[in-house]
């Protein structure tokens, strides 16, 4: 098969370019894209990409495969290869450090803005803050986010305003803390989001839902944040 890979080494290249590599898959098996990358790296050790857990948990190997963001380690070739060709690019919208490795700084800054930790101004109990099973169930579909950035880098609003729009991943996390029965900073959290950019730059195109490798729904969470803002407004 033909693999076209985005290559850029700022120390030696003036500009990024696509490198076409013909490769035979051993045994014709349906391997994961990450395994293919390892085969490519065996051929050309200068190729750079991030990876760690190789099972869709760490979120390191998010990349754009034939136009769709996803995690290379849990994406089989059969799911993305078209006409025996695969185009691999770094996550769109973030600065490229080298080859498929992007600078996630802007993404983490957006995450930092939503204060991703429990805020509770009541005295802590002796052991732990308890939740009812119903309150705990509110966090399902939110806490599973692994911050791989596949969703935010598939979102045009995040491409155009990464410094102002929080992005789907950050907003999913924002709702995760807004929905947490143990958090007491709901009013402050909502006040921080009520500007024309942070939440409201989402136009509901649902690219985030389409690409999330964990099957989460940031658009739904954003809708819930909007409803919370509406219900506390006068």
């Amino acid at each position, binding site marked *: 098969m033909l693999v076209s890979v985005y290559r850029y080494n700022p120390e030696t290249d003036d500009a990024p370019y696509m490198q076409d590599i013909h490769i035979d898959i051993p045994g014709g098996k349906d391997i994961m894209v990450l395994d293919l990358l390892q085969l490519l790296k065996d051929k050309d050790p200068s190729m750079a990409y991030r990876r760690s857990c190789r099972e869709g948990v760490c979120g390191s190997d998010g990349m754009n495969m034939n136009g769709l963001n996803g995690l290379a380690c849990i994406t089989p070739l059969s799911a993305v290869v078209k006409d025996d060709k695969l185009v691999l690019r770094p996550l769109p919208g973030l600065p490229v450090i080298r080859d498929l490795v992007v600078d996630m700084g802007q993404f983490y800054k957006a995450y930092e803005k939503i204060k991703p930790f429990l805020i509770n101004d009541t005295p802590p109990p002796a052991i732990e803050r308890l939740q009812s099973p119903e309150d705990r169930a509110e966090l399902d579909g939110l806490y599973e986010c692994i911050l791989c950035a596949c969703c935010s880098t598939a979102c045009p609003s995040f491409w155009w305003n990464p410094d102002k729009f929080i992005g789907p991943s950050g907003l999913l996390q924002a709702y995760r803390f807004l929905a947490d029965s143990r958090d007491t900073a709901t009013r402050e959290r909502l006040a921080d989001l009520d*500007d024309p950019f942070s939440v409201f730059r989402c136009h509901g195109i649902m690219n985030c839902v389409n690409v999330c490798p964990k099957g989460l729904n940031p658009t739904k969470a954003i809708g819930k944040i*909007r409803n919370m803002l*509406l219900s506390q407004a006068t």
Partner: protein
Amino acid sequence: MVTSITSFGRSGLYDWMVQRVTAVILACYTVFMIGYLAFGAELTYDMWTELFQCTAMRIFTLLTLLSFAAHVWIGMWSVSTDYIKPTGMRFVFQSVTGLLTFVYVAWGIQILWGI
């Protein structure tokens, strides 16, 4: 919290709500006009004049015109903050949009009450 001084109502929630309310008004006016033109009697100059001389129709049209202005500003402001990054160029684009919108509203009022 991102500070914005050129958005319609400074608050994202307010702009979001105004965009939706004005969209409903614009939709109602469009449906009314399509209904009037498609299902009314054959249109004559006298009928058209009579329609717009009616105070209720003038109020409905003015409401639509103002809704159009607010809707346009929020939409075009959003487009300009997405795609025009140099502040000077964005300011010029927003100024031209604001001026044109104002001209359309003032002109519309003149036409409406000049019938």
